[in-house]
C-alpha cells in the first residue's frame, strides 16, 4: 500500500464517523489555535516594545550612577564635572553631544487644575540629544540656563490635563511646587516610550531645577544622555565614557560605580523579558495541545476495538503488521494535521482580534503570526498525532488474526 492510498482510506474511514472525528479534531484545533495566538501575541509584544525603545534613537547612550550587575559600595554620584569631561573632544571623539538631566515627580497646577508629573531639569542640548521638537514657542536656551529663569515647556499630556487643550498655552503661567513658571513652549507628541509616556513631562532649565525645584547638592546629575556620532560609534563611545568616568572616579581597578546603557542593551533586555513571556504563554497553550493529543489516543483506541474484525479480515487478506500500523497512524496523524490546519486559521483570527482590541484601547500593538509559529504548530500537531497514535496502532497491528476475526 502506498501513502496516497493510505491517506484516501483514512479519509474514508474518518468521514464515516464525522461527529467523532470532528470532536477529536476540535481538541487539536483549540490547542493549535492557542499556541498560535499566544506566540503571535508574544511576538507582537516584543516588536512593540523593542520598536518603542528603538524609537528613542539608536545612537543614544544613558549613563547612570551605580552598577546594576555587581555590588558597589558607596557609588559616587555623577556630577556636572563628569558631564564636562565627557564633552572633551580629545578624550571622547565618538561623542557628539552630552545632556545632563535631573528629574523628579512634582505637582503642577494651573488655576485649580492639578497634575502630578515628571519634571526634567535640562540643558539646551537635551532637545538635540533626545530629538524633541516644539509645536509652539521655543526650547530652553542658554540665557534661561544662566539666569535660572522660571520658564517651562509642557508635554502635550500635561497641557491637556491643565488647560484642557494642546495649543495656545504659551505665555500662561503655571505653578510648579507652588512657584510660578512661564510657559515658553509646547513639546511635540512622542507617544509612549520605554519609560512611560514621553508626553507626560515638564521641562525646566537645569539650573532652575537644581537650585529651586528638585534641589540637588554639589552639582549632582541623575542621568547623562550621550549622543554618539552615529549608531556605529555606540561601542566606541561606551568605551570612551567608561574610560573617562573610571579615571575621574579613581576606580581603574575593581567594578565600575556607574552604568552605561545603550539602546541595544535595552532592546536586549526587553527581548529577553518578552521571550520568556512568549515561552510561558506558548507552554500553557502547549498543554491544551497535549490534552488534544490524549483525545486522539482515546478515540483511536476506541476505533481499534470497534474495528477488530475489520483488522482481522485485513490480516486474513494479506495485510502485514506494517500495513495495519500505517493505516492507523495515517488516521491519527490526519486527524491532528487537519486540526492543526484549522487551528492555525483560528489562531490567526484570535490574534487579529487581540490586535483590534488593543488598537481600540489606544495601544498600538500588532500580534504577528510568524511563519515559524505556523511551521512549529503544524509539525508539533502532527507529531502529537503520530505519538499518540503509536500505541493504538501498535495494538491493532499486533492483534492475532484468528482472535480478531472471532471478535464480536
Amino acid at each position, binding site marked *: 500500500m502506498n501513502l496516497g492510498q493510505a491517506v484516501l482510506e483514512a479519509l474514508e474511514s474518518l468521514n464515516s464517523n464525522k461527529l467523532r472525528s470532528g470532536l477529536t479534531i476540535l481538541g487539536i484545533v483549540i490547542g493549535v489555535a492557542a499556541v498560535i495566538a499566544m506566540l503571535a501575541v508574544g511576538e507582537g509584544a516584543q516588536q512593540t516594545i523593542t520598536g518603542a525603545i528603538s524609537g528613542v534613537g539608536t545612537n543614544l547612550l544613558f549613563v547612570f550612577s551605580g552598577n546594576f550587575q555587581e555590588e558597589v559600595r558607596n557609588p559616587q554620584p555623577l556630577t556636572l564635572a563628569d558631564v564636562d569631561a565627557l564633552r572633551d573632544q580629545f578624550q571622547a571623539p565618538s561623542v557628539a553631544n552630552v545632556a545632563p538631566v535631573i528629574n523628579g515627580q512634582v505637582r503642577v497646577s494651573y488655576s485649580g487644575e492639578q497634575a502630578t508629573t515628571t519634571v526634567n531639569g535640562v540643558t539646551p542640548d537635551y532637545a538635540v540629544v533626545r530629538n524633541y521638537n516644539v509645536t509652539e514657542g521655543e526650547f530652553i536656551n542658554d540665557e534661561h540656563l544662566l539666569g535660572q529663569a522660571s520658564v517651562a515647556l509642557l508635554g502635550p499630556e500635561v497641557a491637556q490635563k491643565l488647560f484642557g487643550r494642546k495649543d495656545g498655552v504659551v505665555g500662561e503661567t503655571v505653578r510648579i511646587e507652588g512657584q510660578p513658571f512661564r510657559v515658553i513652549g509646547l513639546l511635540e507628541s512622542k507617544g509612549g516610550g520605554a519609560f512611560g509616556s514621553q508626553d507626560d513631562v515638564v521641562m525646566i532649565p537645569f539650573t532652575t531645577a537644581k537650585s529651586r525645584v528638585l534641589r540637588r547638592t554639589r552639582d549632582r546629575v541623575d542621568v547623562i544622555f550621550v549622543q554618539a556620532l552615529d549608531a556605529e560609534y555606540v561601542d566606541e563611545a561606551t568605551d570612551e565614557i567608561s574610560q573617562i568616568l573610571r579615571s575621574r572616579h579613581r576606580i581603574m581597578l575593581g567594578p565600575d560605580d556607574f552604568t552605561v546603557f545603550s539602546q541595544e542593551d535595552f532592546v536586549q533586555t526587553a527581548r529577553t523579558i518578552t521571550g520568556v513571556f512568549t515561552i510561558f504563554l506558548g507552554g500553557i497553550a502547549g498543554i491544551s495541545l497535549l490534552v488534544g493529543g490524549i483525545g486522539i489516543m482515546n478515540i483511536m483506541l476506541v476505533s481499534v476495538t470497534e474495528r477488530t*474484525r475489520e483488522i482481522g479480515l485485513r490480516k486474513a487478506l494479506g495485510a502485514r503488521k506494517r500495513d495495519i500500523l500505517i493505516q492507523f497512524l495515517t488516521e491519527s496523524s490526519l486527524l491532528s494535521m487537519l486540526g492543526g490546519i484549522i487551528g492555525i486559521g483560528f489562531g490567526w483570527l484570535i490574534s487579529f482580534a487581540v490586535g483590534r482590541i488593543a488598537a481600540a484601547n489606544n495601544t498600538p500593538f500588532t500580534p504577528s503570526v510568524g511563519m515559524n509559529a505556523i511551521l512549529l504548530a503544524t509539525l508539533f500537531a502532527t507529531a502529537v498525532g503520530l505519538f499518540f497514535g503509536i500505541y493504538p496502532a501498535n495494538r491493532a497491528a499486533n492483534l492475532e488474526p484468528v482472535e480478531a476475526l472471532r471478535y464480536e
Partner: protein
Amino acid sequence: MDNDVVIRTEGITKTFRMGEVEVHALCGVSFMIQRGEILSIMGPSGSGKSTLMNILGCLDRPTSGEYYLDGNLVSNMGDDELAEVRNRKVGFIFQSFNLLSRASALSNVELPLRYAGIREGRRERAIESLKAVGLADRIYHRPTELSGGQQQRVAIARALINNPAIILADEPTGNLDSKSGKEIMEILLSLNRERGTTVIIVTHDPTIAAQTQRVIRLRDGLLENGA
C-alpha cells in the same frame, strides 16, 4: 514432492492453554489434498475443525507437525511471511461475508491486490472477478445495498482475485437462505469444475458435504476416516 499435491499435513497438533488447563484441539492430523479437488471438512463443534481451518488458512501455526502449502513449508514461517502466503495462496470465504461496509464491492474485491502491492490494472482485475460471480452490474454498490447472496458472491470474487492455490470456505452458506445457499454452492462447484480451483469447505451441513468429492471428518482432534 508430487506437484499435484496442494496441501500436505504431517502430524499437526494444536494445544491451547486455558489458564492452567491445556486443551488439545488437534492431536496429530495428517492428510493430503490434491490440486483441483473439492472437499469438505466436517465434524461436531469442539472437534477441532475451526482450528484446522485456521491452520490451513495460515491464520494460525500448529504447535507441532508440518504443513506444506503449494510445496512450501509454512508451519514455521514468521508473521509477515504468513501474511504474504495468505495474500497469494489462500482465498477466504467467511460465513458472515466480512466485507468492509463503507467500501464498494469493487474496492472490497480490490483489497487483496492492494496488500499484494499491485498498482496497475487492479480495477480491471476486480471487475473481471466480479463478472465471474455474476455481479458485473453491481460493482459500485456497497455491501449494505446487496442481498446476502450477493454479498457472499462479492466475497467469492475477492477470494478469487489473486488466483489462490486454495479457496477456504467456512460455512459459506450458513447465513443464507436455501436459494442463495444453493447459488453459492453452484458457483463454488463450477469454479472447481471449470477452473480447477481447489476448494475446501468447512461445514455442518451434510447436504453441502454430499456435493463435494470427499469428506474429511474430525472428532476430538483426530481424523475419523483415513485421508
